[in-house]
């Protein structure tokens, strides 16, 4: 493979990405992001949710528990570090797209530090050196560019999302610069590591995830509400996040709580 070809592929994808953005930006939805929940396809989403819960019960949860309890913490952490390091170039690209230069330099420094001093990303040396962690994705880039959150969707396997964050996931999948810089077998290491990191997280937060999926009266509604609140919080979306000043979240002003 010549060197110019991955670069060309990357460029093509960046162009494609812009057309996706335009489509996302034009996507009209009647419920703006100030609505707490906009879920017009609830019936379809509930079917996907039932599928996901079933999948978790039969495969993901047992596998994750096994994975977490079999592997020593050090190895588990190394695999998660490796996966997270491979994600840094994508974070860098998104930071640049958001004109977040501080974030861009944080992810660049982290990538270089962990790749070189952290033996190819197996160790999180950057954190030990006190470097702040920066995380972002194309969904956040879309938010910064003013795209609407869109309707709520539950994706098979991946779980709760919005139309905006789903667009982000797809774009991120095709624009991680690393996947163009690496040849065939190496790219699978990344996928494998991310899958393992996912299992690791499922194992570590077993009790929290179990409490949502298996112990709540309506696990679909709980997962939806928790995801939307958390996602808006992480984006810093004050307009739709329920702030402490919101009378709706002040029980002393709530007529039904008196």
């Amino acid at each position, binding site marked *: 493979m010549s060197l110019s070809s991955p670069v060309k592929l990357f460029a093509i994808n960046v162009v494609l990405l812009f057309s996706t953005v335009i489509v996302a930006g034009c996507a009209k939805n009647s419920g703006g992001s100030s609505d707490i929940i906009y879920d017009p396809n609830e019936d379809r989403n509930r079917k996907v949710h039932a599928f996901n819960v079933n999948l978790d019960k039969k495969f993901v949860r047992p596998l994750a528990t096994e994975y977490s309890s079999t592997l020593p*913490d050090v190895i588990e*952490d190394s695999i*998660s570090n490796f996966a997270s390091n491979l994600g840094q170039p994508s974070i860098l690209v998104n930071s640049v797209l958001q004109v977040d230069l501080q974030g861009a330099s944080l992810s660049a420094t982290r990538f270089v530090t962990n790749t070189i001093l952290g033996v190819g990303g197996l160790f999180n040396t950057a954190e030990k050196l006190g470097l702040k*962690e920066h*995380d972002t994705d194309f969904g956040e880039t879309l938010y910064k560019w003013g795209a609407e959150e869109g309707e709520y969707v539950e994706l098979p396997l991946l779980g709760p999302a919005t139309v905006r964050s789903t667009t982000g996931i797809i774009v991120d999948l095709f624009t991680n610069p690393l996947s163009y810089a690496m040849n065939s077998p190496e790219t699978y290491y990344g996928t494998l590591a991310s899958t393992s990191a996912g299992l690791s997280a499922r194992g*570590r*937060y077993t*009790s*929290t995830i179990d*409490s949502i999926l298996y*112990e*709540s*009266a*309506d696990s679909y*509604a*709980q997962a939806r*509400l*928790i995801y939307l*609140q*958390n996602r*808006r*919080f*992480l984006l810093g979306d004050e307009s739709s*996040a*329920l702030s*402490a*000043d919101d*009378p709706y*979240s*002040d*029980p*002393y*002003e*709530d007529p*039904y*709580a*008196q």
Partner: protein
Amino acid sequence: MLNNITRRTFIALASSLLAIAATPSWALTQGEARKLVDSLVAKINSVIGSGKSEAAMIKEFQGIFRRYADVPIMAQYALGVDGRSASASQKRAFITAFEIYISRKYGKRFREFVGGKIEVKSSRKINAGYEVKTKASLRGSAPFEVTFLVSSRSGKDLFFNMFIEGVNLLLTERAEIGALLDRNGGNFDKMIADLKKAD
């Protein structure tokens, strides 16, 4: 007659005492709000560092909730509009069940903080009182934000809501209690019984 006067005097005295008692508590200051959360956080840290069993820890968290949270107002908010059709005794039974339910549920979340630490970061004034932000640092994961909303409107300085990474406890529990009531066909007593069984 004498009896009557005494009663009247007593009521007058009692209400003025009540007024005196209520006055300072309304004026919750930022310092007092932080002090409450500082002490709450110290308690949580000592429990998660104690190395006790899960059951023992959850019992301790229950005590913490009882001491630091305005459980009745939280329970009534969670019940929301559905609470209007409940009788007084059903409401009382619900508040008791709710206290045990949230202590267990959120006690378990705090239990995952084992080996970690919570520290108070900042505070600001809000409508009902103060918002106090804390940072929870856990082994092997990025630190996250736990926010407490503190008010003295109950007559005591207590927290009445908690946000974990933006997830509002009251709002989330209002949805959950609503779903629990729906599942029981709107039957209050059955919902309370279910709540007692829930984790």
